[in-house]
């Protein structure tokens, strides 16, 4: 098409010329992007949180009653030899009772002193790969002196379920937000275009082809999308840091994924989403007015 450069320039200029409408569109688009982005990052962090707990490859190996701590050292060595085992830490029955007391209250275990401690000595075993859990447990149980291995299978499954659940809800929220955003944006663009129907109509009445009329609007839409994406990235970063800060001050022991880690996908998806929405929104809403002729303007 001839005059392509002019049409692009015109589109860029129009963002400024129609700045009231441009600002309106940008604000709306930014709101939607930040909202959807926040929901996405929130859900990513929640999954991460669940996964952090779930992918805790620890299990507890109990030692038979009557084995001395010296025997235990030997058993520990044996466990360490197993290929899938990463580390082995001794967890004496004294430690165990202490932790129980801490967790459940002194009262409950007040009658239990060191001699009467009914709990077994144990090892905390960290595995390399939780997939090989069953084989590793079988190998551990072959070792003499090992009483039983804590069954973490159920726990892991429960966590996986919760994680799935959280993911489904999060995806649901994000989808709802995306739909609402598209709705809001579509209506904003429609309103913008409505206020420019005269202009479109005049262009057509001096012999401009539809594509010639449309081009600057598409460029304008994409530029607005791009500006919105840029502002949204900044806004989301601020919001994210702010909320992370709140978590830090309220002593919740969870490390947010650093924003720099998600920066690239955020930027990429915002830019793509913003420009796509700007483009498609303009394209669709201009169609209607391209069909109109000059008599839609105050007649002659």
């Amino acid at each position: 098409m001839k005059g392509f450069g002019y049409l692009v320039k015109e589109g860029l200029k129009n963002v400024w010329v129609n700045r009231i409408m441009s600002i309106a569109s940008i604000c709306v688009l930014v709101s939607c992007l930040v909202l959807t982005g926040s929901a996405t990052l929130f859900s990513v962090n929640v999954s991460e949180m669940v996964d952090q707990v779930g992918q805790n490859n620890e299990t507890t190996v109990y030692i038979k009653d009557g084995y001395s701590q010296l025997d235990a050292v030997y058993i520990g060595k044996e466990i360490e030899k197993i290929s899938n085992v990463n580390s082995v830490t001794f967890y004496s029955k004294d430690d165990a009772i202490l932790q129980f007391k801490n967790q459940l209250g002194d009262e409950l275990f007040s009658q239990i002193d060191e001699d009467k401690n009914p709990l077994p000595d144990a090892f905390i075993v960290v595995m390399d790969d939780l997939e090989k859990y069953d084989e590793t447990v079988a190998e551990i149980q072959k070792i003499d002196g090992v009483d039983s291995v804590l069954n973490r299978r159920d726990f892991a499954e429960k966590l996986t379920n919760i994680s799935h659940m959280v993911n489904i809800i999060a995806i649901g929220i994000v989808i709802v937000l995306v739909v609402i955003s598209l709705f809001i944006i579509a209506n904003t663009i429609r309103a913008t275009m409505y206020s420019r129907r005269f202009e479109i109509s005049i262009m057509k009445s001096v012999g401009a082809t539809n594509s010639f009329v449309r081009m600057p609007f598409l460029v304008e839409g994409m530029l607005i999308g791009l500006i919105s994406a840029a502002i949204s990235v900044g806004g989301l970063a601020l919001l994210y840091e702010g909320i992370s800060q709140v978590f830090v001050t309220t002593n919740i022991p969870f490390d947010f994924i650093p924003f720099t880690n998600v920066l690239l996908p955020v930027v990429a998806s915002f830019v793509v989403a913003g420009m796509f929405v700007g483009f498609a929104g303009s394209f669709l809403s201009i169609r209607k007015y391209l069909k109109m002729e000059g008599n839609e303007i105050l007649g002659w």
Partner: protein
Amino acid sequence: MIDFENVSKTYPNGIHALYDVNLHIDKGEFVFIVGASGAGKSTFLKLIMHEETPSNGEITIAGKKISKLKRKEVPYLRRHMGIVFQDFRLIDKMTVFDNVAFAMRAVGENTATIKKRVPYVLSLVGLSDKGKRKPSELSGGEQQRVSLARALVNNPEIIIADEPTGNVDPELSHEIIELLTEINSMGTTVLVVTHEHELVREFNHRVIKIDHGRVVDDTSKDNISDDYDDIKNYDDSDDYAELKQFSDDISVASTDE
């Protein structure tokens, strides 16, 4: 150039704006269209520029039947016309220069040509020093002249002007019609709607009078309606080659879009 065969126009609200109009306007003619307010003059012009379509009958422009025109071809039809609108139709966000230049850009002219041509046309209508203004910063007559400049800028084959002198004083009106006559003498077909009888009297051009949607008077009636063969043999006229190119241009639309 322009043929009306039994053309009627009824607006969606039931208003009969034109009844059974039969007309032939030759290439290179200068035609005044006169008539009372609401007679149907603007409707007549809108039909030619395909802003409205006839309810009945057939309009042929440069050998191309309007009823056969595809939507995509309409812009290419309009590019051969320069139109002065009764309500000016200027884009308020663009400067005067850009309003005029826009019509050139729409047909794909290059920037160098635009930069030379637009100031020249603005000077023709006496607006040399107002190119940088917005239409809202102009007086009524000045806006009307911008609309005129935009109509002239592409050297169209047909100029259609609806009340081009409604908002300017008699001296300027005279100048404008003189300018159009000059352009007409170089082969351009010119259609002017006007209420100013004095102007019509001064310039000795063909006058079509419309009243209540009917052509009630046509100073060149004898040449046309009686001698119906002229219309039939239209394509064989001596300006055939040029007209052929015009209608080819319109057909090219389908591929360019």
